């Protein structure tokens, strides 16, 4: 493939990713919803969309996206007749969109052609997108440091500037015994970890690393070298990292060294935003939301947002204090019948005795189950 082709591939892939992310959002969300997901916005609305519509692989796929980048893609999608604008429903409708038959066909075709099913497979859990970056930073700096140690050349400039990552690596290679373990075992563990992956993914991971004998390449440079597109390599790269994280979490014994990379030592519950984690600590002590709001000096609606976040991410939490099983069943039935996750429509169906909080909790829990 020459470079003209890789430019074309880049464009096609961007459209394909965007459109596939937008498919389940059609007629329910605005044109911007998928942009927030791909960019990895941390707002509750976005996080809930990711859950409700099962869009885990897309979350934070392109953190560097600008609004202009997105508008360009959307314009192309409209030009190619893949999308149609559409008026929303309900009392205060927001404009939404529909995916045309053409668009559906293009999305499915590209999904097949570029092997999305393979590259998206490890993204079954919510927290992976957030963990990928810190995992890669730790791994990158750790490999660089151990490589320099092995090459007996410690006058190097670290590729990762983030202080917390540097601190973590320092803790790993500081104590002599641990350092020796890393020096002796890192290469072998990496080999076993990555051996099952596709060769192109292996190469992509190794070529980006730096050490005593090589300076890592950027994704852009590798795309050029491989005459591929940066977007495609991004898919493969994220796949490789997510698969690594999953395996290390599941097989801690088999990877005594590398599994340290996936330990989350944050004292607050790492699955939650800091604020929600503080709320959760109080929830676990049996304190009611009104009192939590008073204690933490936040609005009660904020605490309700936290409860939804907890319901989404902490399967062990029992929401019975806020949501009886009957109410829950009624909400689920309404959602089924209406074929929607839109709160307003469900609320109109189930009536005024059911609160928005209850509907949100019920929907969050449904997602949790479908992932089991």
């Amino acid at each position, binding site marked *: 493939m020459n470079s003209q082709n890789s430019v074309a591939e880049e464009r096609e892939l961007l459209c394909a990713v965007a459109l596939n992310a937008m498919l389940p959002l059609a007629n329910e969300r605005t044109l911007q919803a998928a942009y927030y997901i791909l960019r990895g916005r941390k707002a509750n609305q976005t996080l809930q969309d990711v859950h409700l519509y099962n869009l885990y692989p897309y979350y934070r796929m392109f953190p560097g996206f600008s609004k202009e980048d997105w508008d360009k893609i959307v314009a192309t999608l409209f030009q190619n007749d893949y999308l149609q604008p559409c008026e929303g429903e309900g009392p205060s409708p927001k404009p939404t969109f529909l995916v045309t038959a053409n668009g559906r066909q293009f999305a499915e075709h590209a999904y097949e052609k570029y092997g999305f099913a393979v590259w998206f497979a490890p993204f079954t859990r919510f927290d992976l997108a957030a963990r990928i970056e810190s995992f890669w930073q730790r791994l990158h700096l750790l490999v660089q440091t151990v490589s320099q140690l092995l090459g007996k050349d410690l006058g190097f*400039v670290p590729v990762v500037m983030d*202080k917390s990552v540097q601190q973590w690596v320092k803790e790993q290679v500081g104590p002599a015994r641990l350092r020796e373990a890393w020096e002796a075992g890192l290469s072998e563990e990496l080999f076993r970890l990555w051996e099952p992956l596709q060769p192109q993914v292996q190469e992509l991971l190794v070529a980006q690393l730096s050490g005593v004998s090589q300076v890592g390449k950027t994704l852009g440079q590798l795309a050029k070298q491989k005459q591929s597109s940066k977007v495609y390599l991004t898919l493969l790269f994220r796949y490789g990292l997510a698969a690594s994280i999953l395996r290390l979490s599941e097989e801690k014994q088999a990877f005594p060294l590398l599994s340290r990379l996936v330990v989350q030592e944050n004292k607050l519950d790492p699955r939650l935003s800091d604020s929600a984690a503080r709320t959760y600590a109080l929830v676990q002590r049996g304190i009611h939301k009104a009192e939590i709001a008073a204690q933490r000096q936040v609005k009660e609606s904020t605490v309700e947002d936290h409860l939804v976040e907890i319901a989404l991410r902490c399967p062990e939490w029992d929401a019975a204090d806020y949501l009886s099983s009957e109410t829950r069943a009624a909400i689920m039935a309404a959602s089924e019948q209406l074929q929607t996750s839109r709160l307003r429509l469900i609320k109109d169906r189930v009536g005024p005795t059911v609160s928005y909080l209850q509907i949100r909790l019920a929907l969050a829990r449904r997602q949790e189950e479908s992932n089991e």
Partner: protein
Amino acid sequence: MNNEWQQQLQQHFGYGEFRPGQESIIKRVLAGKSVLGLMATGGGKSVTYQLPALLLPGITVVVSPLISLMVDQVQQLRTKRKIPAAYLNSTQEAAEAREVLQKIASGQCKLLYISPEKLQQPYVQQALKRATVSLFAIDEAHCISAWGHDFRTDYLRLPDTVKQLGNPPVLAVTATATTAVREEICSLFGIDRENVVVQTLNRANIAYDLAEVGGESERRQLTFDLIDQLAGPGIVYCSTRQAVEVLVAAYQLEGKRHVDGYHGGMNSMERMLIQTQFLAGELDVIIATNAFGMGIDKPDIRYVIHYQLPASLEAYSQEIGRIGRDGQPGYAMLLYSQDDIHLHQYMLDKEYPTPAQIQQFCQLYGAGAPPDPKALASIDMSEEMAAMLTFYTERALGKAQVSTTTEMANPVQDIWQETEKRKAVKQKKLAEMRSYVLTDRCLRKHLNQYFGESDLGFTRFCCSRCGLQRESYEGRQTALLQREVQNSWNLRQALDMLLPKK
């Protein structure tokens, strides 16, 4: 040379000898004098405060305006020079900053790099007082002068800060200061004339070239030809990120050399990889915005091409100052067109507020200081402009408080006069830059005179006005190619390479 200095110089910096000017600055600093040091870019300014930091009790504070530079220097001090150093700036998290402050207060730190705004925080000053500041170094000291090309309002608070910290001796260093700027620095910090140490700013090994271009395609072709022909490593400076990206993509399609781009919009790991590849000789040329180059320790850069006209002679001389720090001959090419001047003029007009904008800002400020991003967006004002206006508004209000009139005068007019003064300075810088490219006399003489330098010596060629042969800077060798991509990928082999057996 003093024995102890020599030993420290050798042990921490790996030099047997001082470079010109270093010793006389250090001697004065260690005698407790406040000093202004002028040294050419690449002349070894940092040693003049790093070495005294080791010899003096207490802590040396280094005020530095650029966060990336700060991080680089501290990194190098710790790893290469084994000097306990730290930095404080706005990018750090609270916990990290606390840790640094504890280290300072307990005396575990010899050098602290700090941004001027961080230095204003009372708890930082307290920690520093406890550690006792024995030297207050100001890097890029020209930033304090309203005559400087790089004026930073934050720097204006530094003389007060020095007093707060118990009047330690001040070492102001810069590579680009006109006579007016020098005088201003000396009066602000009470530096005696005899303690101004000036090293020659003349760069004898650099040859200066100029070319006017008609349009974009001519500009690009000329640049690509130069990249193909000149002996590297080299840097091409562009005015915008977009220009960098377009130029890199175009060159990579047809050019012969290994070239990549660098600008502030790339993520930090990418920037670090590109920079390291350049230092390691895997890239011949970096095409970059002015974000690239500060604190880069690469002595063998053979040329710098300016794809567009820089905004000032100060910026220009700083950027070409990265050529040939090893003393070997190097080549500086400046491309310009009439459009460049118009573009700078346009950006200049946009950078400074109109009276109407100041009026709007003051209303927001009065409503509840200082305005948040949303409020700023509502009046379509950049954060940079808001920061500038905040400074002048605070100052105007402060003046109003001490004055005896009970009614506060309308500050808009005062503030506007201040910003117009700033704008006029930049306008003048642009005019100086313009006159440099339009001159028909010796470029070296023109540039050096601007900085009050009379030494005009050169090693190979002087400049295109005096006559130079560009071929003498051409060369064939290109960067060492990484081992050709192997036909069959082998994970085991690749890992053995990356992580060699002990």
